């Protein structure tokens, strides 16, 4: 398999996962905000923070209103992390990798992009936005489902799997960042009243409610949720599970041995995190550290398999 192709498939998967995650995150936040009474210290601003685009946002807008925030996160092409920009990038990567996947793969992503692009007007109202996000999430899942049923478990599929899981782990760890607000010692009484609903929505953004309930069988508690999202080995969106998937794929790739020390290091780092002992103030830093580990893993992958600008 060409190094160039490996790189394109990896990014295609990352961008598609980012597209789906952005849709999920905004959809869940919409639900959450409808449930909350006015004045709770949680809002669209937190979403900007989680997506790591606060600075870019304030360069363009003053007010983190629902309209401004959702537009920036969904439709703004100047925000490279926006849903539309991610989907456009995924489409470009798949357009240039058509020789690696069944025809329908390209057509599905192309159709989804055309839908996203042609229906931007519907984003301005809540109902239209909900339908739009639903359609995008369903489109991403159709793609994942199609690939599961039509793509050989070859190196191509492995690079797609690695890209998807790296992005997924990254997003889960970002969503866990909600905890720094939700668990803050000085949080308002109102916030405390709504605690269960808030954590429920965090789980909902990852489609994790049912699986969590079956696993934990207890009242929903913040630290339990965080622990589950971080270390449950079976839930597909938990950080540990994503890492396991990545490790599994990497082991089957050529020249994988070089990555072993790095993979071990990420795993040790992850397992050493003790949520019970982590204060809400420390949580942000801990998650940051985890994201840095995954970023390092990405660079290692690129150095091992992607096209280098070398002579000879």
């Amino acid at each position: 398999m060409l190094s160039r192709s490996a790189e394109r498939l990896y990014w295609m998967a990352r961008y598609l996962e980012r597209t789906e995650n952005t849709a999920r995150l905004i959809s869940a936040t919409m639900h959450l905000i409808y449930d909350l009474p006015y004045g709770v210290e949680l809002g669209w601003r937190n979403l900007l923070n989680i997506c790591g685009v606060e600075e870019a946002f304030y360069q363009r807008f003053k007010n983190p209103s629902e309209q401004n925030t959702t537009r920036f996160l969904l439709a703004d092409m100047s925000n490279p992390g926006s849903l539309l920009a991610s989907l456009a990038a995924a489409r470009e990567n798949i357009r240039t990798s058509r020789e690696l996947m069944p025809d329908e793969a390209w057509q599905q992503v192309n159709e989804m992009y055309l839908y996203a692009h042609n229906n931007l007007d519907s984003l301005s109202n809540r109902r239209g936005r909900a339908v739009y996000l639903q359609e995008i999430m369903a489109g991403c899942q159709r793609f994942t489902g199609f690939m599961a049923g039509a793509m050989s478990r070859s190196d191509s599929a492995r690079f797609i799997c690695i890209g998807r899981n790296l992005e997924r782990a990254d997003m889960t760890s970002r969503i866990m960042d909600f905890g720094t607000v939700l668990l803050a010692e000085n949080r308002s009484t109102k916030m405390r009243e709504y605690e269960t609903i808030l954590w429920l929505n965090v789980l909902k953004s990852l489609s994790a409610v049912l699986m969590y309930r079956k696993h934990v069988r207890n009242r929903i508690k913040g630290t339990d949720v965080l622990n589950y999202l971080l270390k449950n080995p079976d839930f597909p969106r938990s950080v540990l599970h994503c890492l396991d998937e990545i490790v599994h794929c990497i082991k089957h790739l050529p020249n994988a041995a070089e990555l072993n020390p790095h993979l071990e290091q990420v795993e040790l780092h992850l397992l050493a995190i003790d949520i019970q002992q982590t204060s809400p103030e420390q949580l942000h830093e801990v998650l940051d550290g985890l994201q840095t580990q995954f970023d390092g893993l990405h660079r290692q992958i690129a150095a091992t398999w992607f096209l280098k600008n070398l002579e000879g």
Partner: protein
Amino acid sequence: MATQSIWAQYSADKAYDEMIAAGGKPRDACASLSQYLQSLGMDAIKGRLSAAEAAIMEMGITFTVYSDEGNIDRAWPFDIIPRLIDFQEWQVVEAGLKQRLKALNCFIDDVYNDQQIIKDGLVPADLIASSSNFRKECLGMKPKFGSWANICGSDLVRAGDGELYVLEDNLRVPSGVSYMIENRVITKRIFPELLENLNILPVDDYPTQLFEMLASLAPEADDTPQIAVLTPGIYNSAYFEHAFLAQQMGAELVEGGDLLVKDDDCVYMRTIKGLEKVDVIYRRIDDLFLDPEVFHKDSVLGVKGLMRAWKAGNVALANAPGAGVADDKVVYAYVPEMIRYYLNEQPILPNVPTYLCSDAEQCAYVLAHLPELVVKPANESGGYGMLVGPHATQKEIKQFHKLIQDNPRNYIAQPALALSTCPTLCTDKLEPRHIDLRPFILQGQNSFVTAGGLTRVALRAGSLIVNSSQGGGSKDTWIINREQ
């Protein structure tokens, strides 16, 4: 309310019409189609057009056009009314095209080796020396099966007399075959009931044939040669086709940066395992950009040392470098002679009468008759740099007068043919529009011709320019077998 016939206002009397004969009756091969369209009625036909446009968007069938605002991917302009050719007629055309490519390959092989045809005085020596597609670096080369031009796209036109003529042979990097295949996919979606009842030859075996032809070129007998399609990259106007063909063949789609030639004069591609040897390259890059070591020094599209590897016999290139020497409109004029000379056969398909400006007598005729002629530069493609006499202004005629006088070798002229027309959906009625046909011919160990080809249509009323870069569209082409 009585429905008016969709053919009531169709006037097929300006040129030979492919569907409607003089007097307004459909030709035999087209009777079912014309009846069917009539039974649908105009509104339903327009409905099928919307369905086709949606399919083209979803399938992402595009071509890239260059403009001041950068490159834009445009939806493929497709006319839903198919163009029909009777199988009986097609069998003759198919044999004629194979014959032609065989003779052209004999000629190219001769040019780079013994040059017997020049010694025998059939082709003037300076014709070769002055051809901008002659590559002296290829002298002495002997590609497998004597086949230099492995993929050829020949343009056919039907003139007023109802005969099909060969207008030119594209032997460098002819494109359009992917659209031929996709056009059929769209037709299947929008006219399924029609295809069910007629016996139309399938077109989708081309990628398989291309794959087998390319595999037959591999330097060493090998069951699984490594085949790659070399593209200039994602900004090339034909990138869609490069990716399409690689995908359909299951071959690697590579850019120059993916390949390298090592000291052993073998070509390798950079993979996740390390370097892997490549046996056959279907290159979609012009000769001059192939190898900066030999041709354009600053080419970033090509691969350093590729010519070295090819000359050492370690990799097959299709088409072979230098094959374009026969893709010269002056050389074209000699093709009927070549067929007699190399194959000892009579040409099956006629050439369009061609005046060579390099010949003083013919040049004088051309200069005196410019308003009636079509003048073409010898080495351009894509319909650029042409003069269409009957449609030209005084100023343009003057300009070409001078161009030809300054560089006669670079120009040929042909009578302005009344290209045949075919019913085409224009806003809310069917109108005749001029068309041509580009079949694709393969030659490796064996020869193969596509069933039909890409019919290109000039969408502007009266226009003769069918190139997609200049407002042309395309049609599905049906070779229809009425026996059985």
